[in-house]
């Protein structure tokens, strides 16, 4: 570190300048690291070989939250007394002559007395130095050492005054900006909380955003694997793989579907709305959305004609599967209807027309929120139904037929996704068509998807 000098040691600008430059070039960085630390701990003075001056010890720690501006040494009001008036003149002169924005502008002379006032590249140091220097630097045009005050210096002083003034104004403006931003932030937070309470059932993205994005990621991975499986099935059938090999691929497909239902179950526990509204699926798939996925009986209806030839027994088996699936679907749907009725009654409460008192309102809403827990059960049972249907198909069919069955299912869904892409890239006549889409999805969220197609529209 630069050796500490007393006030009277620094005579002659050029020397000091040189010293200053040298000092900074060589040791400035290390010095300022220490300086910063010391300041942050409110330590009065640097614990180095620099001596502690009255300046340092008498300084109270400041919390500086202002951004760094290039520090200009300026003369503050003369009433701000400081014991370090002595070398102000030299300091300022040195500052001016070394002028460059944000660059180090101190001299070793200063270290002896006004360490914290050093301008530096470090923003924190700048900030701390700024406040401190304001107090320290005495607005004195006279030099205790008795040096002459030349016009050039005066000019520089005046410029510094201006700069300081501007800095002060900027600082003020910044503080005001911060304050108003702070108020805005708290207001926004309040609005957000309110909106969440009211609107979380409509968007479903508040705190559950993470869950849905995690699921979406895992789902896209699942889709990729699914595409691979579908290709393998196709190739296996084309080359007429032996049954043993084909069986392995088919089993892999079945396990793959099991994984999807497991994924959905986990996600539904955390964010049932993301699952049940099909936000993870493409728009075309969402047309056919039934309780957060495909409708088993409908899927069976689509692919069964393509599974020919089937034996009598298999036909009966598949027909029974379709029927029992329909019955189960209907039962689940009626249960969901019952849920909707119950929820609607709770939300409507005693009186929609007369303004409800806060107590009953919040009471009803709390009950309504509790009822939403039922939704997860319905999604789970629907997925259970889907899973059982796929397994039953696998049981009824031979390996070869099962391979074709799963290939058909994979290909069908893949075409639906392709359809979604085509729709998304269709030539748009006017923007109104587009804006209808989000509204549609919102409708889907508010009303439960009804049996059949285009439930959301």
């Amino acid at each position, binding site marked *: 570190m630069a050796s500490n000098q007393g006030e009277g040691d620094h005579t002659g600008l050029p020397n000091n300048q040189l010293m200053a430059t040298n000092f900074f070039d060589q040791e400035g960085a290390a010095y300022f690291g220490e300086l910063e630390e010391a300041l942050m701990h409110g330590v009065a003075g640097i614990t180095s070989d620099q001596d502690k001056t009255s300046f340092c010890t008498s300084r109270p720690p400041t919390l500086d939250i202002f951004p760094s501006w290039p520090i200009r040494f300026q003369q503050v009001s003369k009433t701000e007394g400081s014991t370090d008036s002595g070398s102000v003149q030299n300091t300022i002169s040195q500052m001016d002559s070394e002028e460059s924005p944000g660059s180090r502008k101190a001299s070793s002379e200063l270290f002896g007395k006004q360490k914290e006032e050093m301008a530096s590249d470090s923003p924190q140091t700048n900030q701390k130095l700024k406040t401190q220097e304001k107090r320290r630097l005495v607005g004195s045009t006279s030099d205790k050492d008795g040096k002459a005050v030349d016009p050039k210096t005066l000019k520089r002083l005046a410029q510094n005054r201006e700069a300081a003034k501007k800095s002060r104004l900027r600082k003020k403006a910044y503080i005001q900006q911060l304050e108003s931003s702070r108020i805005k932030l708290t207001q926004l937070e309040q609005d957000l909380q309110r909106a969440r309470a009211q609107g979380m059932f409509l968007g479903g993205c508040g705190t559950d955003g993470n869950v849905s994005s995690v699921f979406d990621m895992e789902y896209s991975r699942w889709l990729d694997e699914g595409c691979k499986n579908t290709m393998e099935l196709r190739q296996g059938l084309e080359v007429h793989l032996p049954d043993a090999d084909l069986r392995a691929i088919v089993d892999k497909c079945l396990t793959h579907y099991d994984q999807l239902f497991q994924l959905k179950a986990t996600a539904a526990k955390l964010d049932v709305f993301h699952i049940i509204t099909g936000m993870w699926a493409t728009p075309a798939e969402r047309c056919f959305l039934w309780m957060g996925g495909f409708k088993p009986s409908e899927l069976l209806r689509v692919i069964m004609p393509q599974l020919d030839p089937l034996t009598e027994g298999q036909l009966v088996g598949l027909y029974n599967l379709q029927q*029992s699936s329909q019955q*189960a679907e*209907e039962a689940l749907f*009626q*249960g969901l209807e019952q849920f909707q009725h*119950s929820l609607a009654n709770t939300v409507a409460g005693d009186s929609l027309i007369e303004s409800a008192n806060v107590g009953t309102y919040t009471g009803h809403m709390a009950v309504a929120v509790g009822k939403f827990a039922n939704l997860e059960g319905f999604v789970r049972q629907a997925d259970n139904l889907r899973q*059982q249907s796929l397994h*039953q198909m696998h049981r009824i069919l031979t390996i070869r037929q099962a391979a074709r069955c799963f290939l058909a299912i994979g290909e069908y869904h893949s075409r639906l996704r392709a359809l979604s892409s085509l729709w998304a890239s269709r030539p748009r006549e006017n923007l109104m068509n587009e804006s209808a889409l989000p509204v549609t999805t919102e409708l889907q969220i508010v009303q439960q998807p009804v049996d059949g197609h285009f439930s959301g529209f």
Partner: protein
Amino acid sequence: MQSQAAAAVEEEEWGYLRAARGTTMYELERVERLASESAVVIFSVSSCCMCHAVKRLFCSMGVSPTVVELDEDPRGKEMERALSRLLGGGSAPAVPVVFIGGKLVGAMDRVMAAHINGTLVPLLKEAGALWL
């Protein structure tokens, strides 16, 4: 088969157990007794939507099940706990639970799986709940 004295002692023991543990074999026994009284017994709660779904399922198959609404039974809470234990504990809801022919089939997922894989109908026929 038990002598009256033994039965009395047993009742006393169960009574002690009940007092000590709140829900007990006594309630479980009651559940099982109720379950064997009809071909198809559904333990339900009147406000439960999934219970409504399972009831609709059996009706759609032409079965008229006996429904025990636990919220209308004085010992319903304990019976719910007993049912939950039967299902294997955990956080799953205790209702609906279905018994066919006095034997436990399970909660909604088991019932649906049984229906899809074709084992439900034979079970119902065996219990005399379905004729065809």
